[in-house]
């Protein structure tokens, strides 16, 4: 039984014939280089993923703040059309929250020390069918286009999110 078992172990039979050589230094260096390249590639891939994700959070916050700006303008518009219509076209204005009310101010608004929020008003035009058109038509003094912008610094640059909506005095 023992002989049969050993006869099925080719490694044992060939053991003495192997001229085993260790790795040369050059082989080790090459293998190390490949391993290092793989490590760097993995790290770079992860860094790219992390970079993309780290841009996501401020972008979402900026979107919510932009959306809030549009909602606040609805509130402001309901307090009086003249509050919006008296703002010169293209002039940057800002929001101020007292804790119970929102108002429009000329003082820049900075949220969490990072997000700069402002808004501008612009006139809107309508065609003969009374549809709003981006070019041509006649200016409708009872319609205004508001654009809320939120900008924030990220990785040495400035990113921004803008939301626009029309407001009516009807």
């Amino acid at each position, binding site marked *: 039984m023992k002989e049969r078992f050993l006869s099925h172990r080719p490694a044992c039979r060939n053991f*003495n014939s192997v001229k085993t050589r260790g790795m040369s230094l050059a082989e*080790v260096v090459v293998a190390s280089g490949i*391993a*290092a390249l793989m490590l760097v590639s993995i790290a770079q891939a992860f860094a790219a993923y992390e970079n993309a994700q780290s841009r996501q959070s401020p972008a979402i916050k900026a979107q919510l703040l932009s959306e809030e700006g549009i*909602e606040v303008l*609805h509130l402001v518009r309901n307090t009086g059309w003249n509050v919006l219509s008296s703002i010169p076209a293209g002039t940057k204005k800002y929001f101020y929250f007292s804790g*119970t009310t929102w108002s429009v101010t000329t003082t820049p608004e900075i949220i969490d020390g990072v997000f700069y929020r402002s808004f501008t008003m612009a006139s809107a035009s309508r065609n003969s069918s009374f549809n709003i058109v981006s070019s041509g038509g006649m200016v409708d003094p009872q319609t205004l286009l508001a654009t809320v912008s939120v900008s924030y610094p990220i990785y040495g640059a400035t990113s921004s999110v803008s939301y626009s909506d029309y407001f009516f005095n009807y």
Partner: protein
Amino acid sequence: MKNISKIKAFSLPEIIVYVAIFSVILLALTQTVVVVSKSFELTRGERVIDASALSEYDRLGREIRNATNVNTANSVFNASPGILAITVGSSVGASQIIRKFYLANGKIEVSDNGVVQGDLTSDEATTTSLVFRLITATSTQAVRIETTIAAPANAPIASENFYDTFVVRNTYEH
């Protein structure tokens, strides 16, 4: 057995060089794994926070906009943990529902007429601060929501603040 003598062994300098190279590789590998692991946890936490914020604000925004009005008697404003109660559906009669949003074990929970409906956020994140602020302008009601969301829920390593305001469309004149 004769051939064994022909096996070329490593010399001592070679072994020293190999061991040194492998040590450097092992050290770099360990450091990379540690850094990547920590960074991955942070990134994963941020992803969970973002998903929770979107989920919370999407649902809360829709509910507030579609509400009949804000039920101030059952709400807790300007403090955390806040409670927001809104009237849903008909303002009178049997179809009227008082829907509440409040914090329960770090998650925003919803109840209809006192019966718990479920959570707005996953178990992976925890809402550490929830403040509702009621804004009334002429006849219009609006609610500002201020939240701080952290993740992972059991041992937070990332935390973000989120803000948004929603106007109750039923109270909006234009």
